């Protein structure tokens, strides 16, 4: 074993295709696998959203292309290919998948429920977590702390493949009789625990099983991340010289480790209720439906911070690089993240103000929730402080990061409104909540992901993504994103409930319908714009401009590794001399000072005046 260790970086050895690309043990390849997985699931999740957005804007109108034509609906005459196909389908006596879920191209209300349930489930568990934690976590941790791989490479590989298995189980749910899970991504009992209530049978079971498998996957990931970060930092890489993104991933690994088992136990109880005749969450059998909400949110509130913290970390990497200034208040950034992580355990009740709760308890959840705004604001002001009087380079990663910061502010502010339980009585379960979610998760995490992909792509694939295409993608996405989600605040305050298949059934919502149409049009633009991202990624992997070793002139260790990064990452393990954000140090001849550069020496070995390089 030890021999093997040396062999792998002393002389080059060819690996078979399967070892290299499929069952790879290399953290970089596993990171890329998560990246591809996450991007594909992003398209699936987005596609589901477009389906239900169509239904919301034009309730019960057949879908374009695959649905009945207008002529057919008005006159009953077969006018298009789709009409003919549907006629044939309806003629034979066995009911196909399409006929059950969207007869004639119209989305069935039961299918609508599965659509929004699966949209959220996929986006949260199969897109944002795999991308932020799986892809960037795997790729960045060993490179940025200066080690050759994760502590447990086999565990790392298993983590990806169980993640994949979870994804396949989740996808299989669409094709089982009774349709996929339809109780919302929050899976509230008893809707989720009694098959008769929702009419969903195996769909909900698979939903539970898949999430448990995902839990095991992230458990393996967390064990690896925590061990690696604690034990395998390069010499000189003290905790307070760790880049902030590593801090964020460290904290997130701890949150995942401690939060997921709780929901895993609750999911197991749901499975018992559904399959073994117990009644944990069924009031009729002496059970307690509210218990599910407590267990779920005790997990899911930390989970939403799992979705944002790595985004915050990545933003804190990119801002100083493109502002050419040290990050403002490094330590306060770290402590703010720790505070957020800590507080996230004691706020879960803010999701349950309307579920029936002792008002005193409600008030304490309200207080703790509003407290979270304090560390969040510290981070925001630190980012603004970093930008203050900087000579900003408006590259694509920077544009996405700036979008991250500004959109997160909007999402955080709407959070404070909802945290007030009297206000929340009014806006709970409306589109206001949907607006909030998307400002933090899309406006926050997803923009950070876009920026991160663009920023680390040269190190991942040895090539640059196309900047023009990147800018076009960014601006369309940014504008369409706001077009979709900003108006949701308005219809939410107007009383538009979330999770309804046909707003036109409610007279008081009918005047809001033009806004729904506007949102859907923007949503389609937003969806189509993501094709540009895919093209940019996949084209650039093969054809992009070849990247140099440190294209953004950044300090952190991953840029010290050669491009493309070889197996084992570094020639010799680097020695770290100072913190990660020393940009524009007075007296230095370049405006960046790599972490590997000995104190008192400039890039070319000449001494720097004393006191110029802060630790």
């Amino acid at each position, binding site marked *: 074993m030890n021999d093997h260790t040396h062999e792998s970086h002393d002389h080059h050895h060819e690996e078979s295709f399967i070892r290299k690309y499929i069952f790879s043990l290399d953290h970089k390849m596993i990171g890329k696998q998560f990246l591809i997985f996450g991007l594909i699931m992003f398209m699936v999740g987005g596609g589901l959203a477009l389906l239900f957005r169509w239904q919301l804007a034009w309730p019960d109108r057949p879908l374009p292309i695959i649905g009945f034509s207008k002529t057919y609906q008005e006159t009953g005459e077969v006018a298009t290919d789709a009409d003919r196909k549907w006629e044939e389908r309806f003629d034979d006596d066995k009911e196909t998948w399409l006929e059950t879920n969207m007869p004639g191209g119209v989305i069935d209300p039961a299918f609508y429920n599965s659509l929004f349930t699966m949209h959220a489930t996929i986006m949260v568990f199969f897109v944002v977590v795999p991308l932020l934690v799986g892809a960037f976590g795997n790729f960045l941790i060993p490179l940025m702390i200066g080690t*050759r*791989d994760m502590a447990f490479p086999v565990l790392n590989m298993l983590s990806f493949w169980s993640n994949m298995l979870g994804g396949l189980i989740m996808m299989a749910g669409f094709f089982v009789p009774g349709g996929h899970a339809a109780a919302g991504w929050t899976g509230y009992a008893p809707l989720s625990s009694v098959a008769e209530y929702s009419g969903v049978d195996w769909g909900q079971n698979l939903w539970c099983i898949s999430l448990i498998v995902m839990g095991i996957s992230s458990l393996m990931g967390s064990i690896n991340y925590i*061990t690696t970060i604690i034990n395998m930092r390069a010499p000189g890489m003290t905790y307070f010289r760790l880049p902030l993104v590593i801090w964020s991933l460290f904290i997130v690994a701890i949150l995942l480790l401690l939060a997921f088992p709780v929901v*895993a136990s*609750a999911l197991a109880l749901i499975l018992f209720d559904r399959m073994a005749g*117990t009644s944990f969450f069924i009031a009729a059998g002496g059970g307690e439906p509210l218990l599910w909400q407590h267990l779920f949110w005790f997990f899911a509130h930390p989970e939403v911070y799992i979705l944002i913290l790595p985004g915050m970390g990545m933003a804190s990497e990119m801002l100083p690089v493109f502002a050419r200034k040290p990050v403002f208040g490094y330590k306060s950034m770290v402590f703010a993240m720790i505070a957020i992580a800590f507080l996230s355990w004691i706020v879960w009740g803010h999701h349950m103000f309307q579920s029936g709760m002792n008002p005193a308890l409600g008030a304490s959840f309200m207080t703790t929730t509003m407290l979270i705004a304090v560390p969040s604001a510290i981070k925001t002001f630190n980012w603004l402080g970093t930008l203050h009087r900087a000579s900003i380079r408006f590259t694509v990663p920077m544009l996405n990061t700036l979008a991250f910061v500004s959109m997160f502010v909007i999402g955080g502010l709407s959070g404070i409104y909802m945290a007030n339980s009297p206000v929340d009585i009014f806006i709970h379960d409306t589109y206001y909540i949907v607006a909030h979610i998307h400002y933090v998760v899309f406006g926050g995490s997803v923009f950070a992901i876009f920026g991160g992909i663009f920023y680390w792509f040269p190190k991942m694939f040895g090539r640059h993504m196309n900047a023009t295409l990147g800018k076009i993608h960014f601006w369309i996405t940014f504008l369409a994103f706001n077009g979709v989600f900003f108006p949701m605040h308005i219809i939410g305050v107007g009383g538009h409930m979330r999770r309804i298949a046909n707003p036109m059934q409610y007279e008081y919502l009918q005047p809001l319908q033009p806004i729904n149409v506007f949102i859907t049009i923007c949503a389609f633009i937003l969806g189509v714009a993501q094709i540009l991202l895919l093209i940019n990624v996949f084209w650039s992997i093969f054809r992009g401009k070849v990247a140099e070793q440190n294209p953004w002139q950044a300090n952190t260790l991953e840029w010290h590794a050669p491009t493309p990064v070889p197996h084992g990452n570094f020639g010799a*393990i680097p020695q770290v001399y100072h913190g990660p954000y020393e940009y524009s140090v007075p007296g230095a001849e370049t405006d960046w000072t790599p972490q590997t550069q000995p104190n008192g020496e400039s890039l070319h070995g000449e001494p720097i005046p004393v006191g110029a390089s802060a630790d």
Partner: protein
Amino acid sequence: MNELEHTSYEQAEGESRPISNARLAVLVLLGAEIMFFAGLIGTFLVFRLGSVTWPPPSQADVRLPIGVTGLNTIVLLLSGYTMFQGLRAIRQGRQKELRNWLFATGLLGITFLVVQGSEWIRLVHHGFTLSSGVYGSVFYVLIGCHALHVLVAVLWLLVVFAGAIAGRFSMNRYVSVEVCAIYWAFVVVLWPLLYILVYLI
């Protein structure tokens, strides 16, 4: 096991570590295990504290086997002791003693499982099952999850035992034993808590 014994690149370079990767990883794993049981124990407490009488009226005639299980608790605690002795033995390089202590530990663990299993069979024959109201549900799920953990610990122990027979451990190579012992300690320490909660109060 191999994965735990030598992680690639471990100790090859980098600073000396206060704690090895494998030990750290099991401790981290225990964090997750504790939270898993916290979820289940929380569930138990919600029902226990939410009901005026326990067992609930519908299950009033159920008698859990307090005595036998009490003895069984002692069996499991003993296995914790033998495991610890085994670890001490190998730390001082006494391979043969390690084998004996591991053997005793495994035997005690299996005894625990067999007794639990036979008590369960008796209860089921008395008509007390998983679907006997929430009382039956929490009992079987909570105790069953623990039993499952003991089973995993026993299987793990078997692997380590096989290693001990093959003479793979020595005074400065015993991480696998230690890691298994940490996990074993967890299932042992957890049990009295569950026993008190579920059987006694």
